[in-house]
């Protein structure tokens, strides 16, 4: 026997079921799409970083291997010129000085793009070169304990070097730190790099959603070389990073 009350009850239940299915599916679908969207964004960032590094390496190699020899040849030819007046001798000397300056600048730019010591001793050696050549005078006191880890290879060393550059940049620009420690150590077949500054610190979001572009790049680069990054920070307590990765991931 169907009464009006039971009809209303059935209609309510059925409507609720339909609305719940629709809303539930919408939420599920958005969640799945958002996950896919984030994955695509990560791939996009990764591709951008890879393209950037490839471009930098090409520019550095071109400057060093192509423009450099042309300048050397030009300088050599100028040395063969015998000026017939005092004015000519003066101009020739100035031209040779200019070529030396350009050559020096080229080496500097090439080395700034990809430090040469990366292939000699790894990222910490690269950092040492960077700090000594290009960061003088330093706006903060940096203590660097470098360890040779040539076995990382140039590509992984380059990514680690960029991560350390980002940490240094953050310490200067955002943390307003006066001291920064960068220490590397080999533990078994793993490389561990600890960094800590005495800056203002920040509220670190472990999910990564609230973090800035620099920290997101750190995570992307870490993912690219199979490294784990641990971040510890709080307002007024400085910032600490621990980067850990296998020296030979193939083994």
């Amino acid at each position, binding site marked *: 026997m169907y009464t009006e009350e039971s*009809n209303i009850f059935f*209609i309510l239940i059925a409507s609720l079921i*339909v609305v719940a299915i*629709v809303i539930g599916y919408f939420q599920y*679908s958005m969640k799945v*799409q958002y996950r896919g969207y984030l994955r695509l964004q990560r791939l996009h960032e990764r591709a951008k970083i890879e393209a950037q590094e490839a471009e930098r390496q090409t520019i550095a190699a071109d400057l060093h291997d192509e423009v450099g020899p042309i300048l050397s040849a030009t300088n050599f030819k100028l040395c063969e010129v015998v000026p017939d007046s005092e004015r000519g001798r003066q101009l020739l000397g100035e031209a040779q000085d200019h070529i030396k300056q350009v050559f020096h600048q080229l080496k500097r730019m090439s080395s700034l793009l990809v430090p040469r010591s990366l292939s000699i001793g790894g990222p910490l050696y690269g950092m040492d070169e960077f700090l000594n050549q290009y960061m003088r005078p330093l706006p903060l006191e940096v203590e660097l304990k470098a360890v040779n880890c040539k076995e990382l290879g140039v590509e992984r060393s380059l990514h680690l070097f960029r991560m350390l550059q980002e940490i240094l940049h953050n310490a200067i620009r955002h943390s307003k730190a006066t001291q920064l420690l960068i220490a590397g150590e080999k533990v078994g077949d793993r490389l561990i790099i600890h960094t800590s500054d005495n800056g203002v610190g920040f509220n670190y979001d472990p999910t990564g959603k609230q973090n800035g572009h620099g920290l997101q790049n750190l995570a992307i680069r870490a993912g690219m070389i199979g490294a784990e990054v641990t971040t510890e920070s709080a307002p007024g307590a400085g910032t600490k990073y621990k980067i850990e990765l296998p020296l030979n991931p193939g083994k």
Partner: protein
Amino acid sequence: MTPLIIYLVYLGIGLMTALTALHFYRRALQEYRPMLIFIWVLVGVELIQTFFTNTVVATALDNIHYLAEALLVIWIAKRWNLFNKRPLMFPVLVGFILACWTVEKLVTGNLDQLSWCRIISSLVIALLGIEMMSRTLLSAPASLSRNTIYLFSMALIFSYVLAALAEIYLLILSREPSESLILGYFYFTVALNAITYILFFKSILCIPRKATYSLS
């Protein structure tokens, strides 16, 4: 306004949408053509049912058209790459809808206008619409009012969710239908379909055109 005038206005909107779909068919990109066919089917069925009310043709069309609608929407979803990551979903959905329809129409012999199969197919269409919409919400959030997929999926969700709800009410209340209930259902359906046609019309106008090439 009498129900007849309301119905004629509604048919006019449907006809205008179908003619616009016809006009844009050749110029539309391949992947949007199933959508235009779907709109023709909707309007075509409506027109035929208007002229053959209470005949065998109307009953047959009434029982076939929602199967066709569901299959067409699944086809549209396939053309819009909804099943790329889940390729099995396409045959599963087609099989499910066909099985539901076969069981209800051929096995149990239910040829009534109201049926559970119709409710299920409406829900499937609405859920596919949600899937299409959630994709566009993230990929093209800035131009949603001019995004064909978004407008079309909005129309599907709006139309089929409400249609499913109305079907449920009627299915429960049809044991004792009154004249006012039938008239109320008529107005509701006409208003719902008119809004859906307007959304379809706007989505047709936003379809990306085929690129034209010229040697001059």
